[in-house]
């Protein structure tokens, strides 16, 4: 009945799902879940404030990815950014590379303007689909950054080789830059070119950080426990393999 080699994977998913269910339930019941301040998220107020003071637009992009988890994390941040820009009357320009992400992004912006009490402030032409081609998307975003002379540039989502090109273009126009991605190969580029970087899985804490949503907080606690379990497995695996045992690797291959 099981696909070959996926019994352990299924068990792991079942454990993660169970833990998430338990901790979401506990968080709803009032369990205190504290999260450490994440400088990249804290700096979003500064980025919006800078754009308001300078009277220039703020640029946001959820990256080159389709509707994957990293993009959803980016869109969670976009919701918060949109509300802030609506509050301070800052023009927000969003560029998107994938058509399915574009449709969702437009909806997220529309809803956030509505929640901010300014539905009329949403301008469809400021949510821009650029191109599904990686380099056309990169050149399109560079064009927006230069032509609009943005004061702040926020890039949170799925990024690939275009990451440094976008970050350097943002740096050239003098924008304050906040970036985040789970792509380990692109994080160093963001670190050297941006003012604030949201490292890897930190971006998945956006919902918990901004909205203090109990489901997100519970989920975050479950993620931490799963990470601890992973570290335990890695230490046990290293010790067992060093001792010549293949018990754990055999178990994980089932």
């Amino acid at each position, binding site marked *: 009945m099981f696909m070959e080699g996926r019994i352990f994977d299924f068990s792991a998913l079942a454990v*993660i799902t169970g833990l998430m269910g338990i901790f979401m339930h506990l968080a709803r019941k009032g369990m205190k879940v504290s999260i450490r301040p994440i400088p990249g998220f804290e700096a979003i107020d500064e980025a919006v404030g800078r754009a308001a003071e300078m009277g220039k637009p703020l640029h946001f992009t959820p990256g080159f990815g389709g509707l994957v988890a990293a993009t*959803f994390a980016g869109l969670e941040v976009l919701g918060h950014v949109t509300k802030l820009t609506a509050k301070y009357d800052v023009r927000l320009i969003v560029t998107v590379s994938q058509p399915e992400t574009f449709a969702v992004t437009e*909806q997220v912006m529309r809803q956030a303007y509505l929640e901010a009490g300014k539905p009329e402030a949403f301008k469809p032409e400021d949510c821009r689909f650029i191109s599904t081609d990686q380099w056309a998307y990169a*050149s399109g975003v560079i064009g927006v950054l230069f032509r609009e002379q943005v004061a702040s540039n926020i890039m949170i989502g799925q990024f690939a080789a275009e990451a440094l090109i976008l970050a350097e273009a943002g740096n050239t126009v003098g924008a304050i830059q906040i970036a985040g991605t789970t792509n380990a190969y692109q*994080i160093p580029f963001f670190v050297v*070119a941006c003012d604030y970087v949201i490292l890897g*899985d930190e971006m998945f804490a956006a919902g918990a950080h901004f909205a203090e949503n109990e489901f997100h907080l519970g989920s975050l606690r479950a993620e931490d426990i799963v990470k601890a379990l992973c570290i335990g497995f890695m230490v046990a695996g290293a010790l067992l393999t060093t001792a010549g045992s293949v018990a754990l690797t055999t178990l994980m291959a089932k």
Partner: protein
Amino acid sequence: MFAKKTLPTIIAFVCGVTVVIAYFFNIPFIQARAQDILKWQSVIAVFALGLGAVNIIRIHVNNVQRSQNRNLYSLALLLTFAITILVGVFAGQNSDAYKFIFDYINVPTGSAIFSLLAFYIGTAAYRAFRAKNAEAAILLLTGCIVMLGRVPLGAKILPVSVPLTNWIMSVLNVGGQRGVMIAGAIGFIAVSLRIIVGLERRSYGGE
């Protein structure tokens, strides 16, 4: 409310659970439905591409009409957009004209943008390699060792840079990257599960 929030949640749950079950269990009926869902995904993406095309046309027609400084760029985009579509539809994607557009315009311009990366790596490295504090000094030192270890001349200047580079890349670098990857994968699973059970409502227009 039902069409905007409840229905998308139900669709996301059914599709998500079907694909997950198909991944773990060998049940032919579920496998077939999962394949159908993946095909629907492609069809929906094509419709979304139409929305994207409309957005591009709307923005650039507005630019042209407003006669702003950028109207030449917008005009060029609209012209090339129209020409490419007309050639693709009437001459076909295997025609010489379409191949010409792809091979002699699209590919070289893409390569030109990609080539910017080489210069940007230089400018970013110049800024990053200023030893302003302890962390930047460590980055500078590590960067210098890796650069020396990666070029033949570096091995002549400082022979120890080669084994040191290999150690930095295969132990320190891989260790850090795997940490990010594992934590990222756990986050991916958490977000995906929240989407499947309808707790990630922002994308449906919820709070």
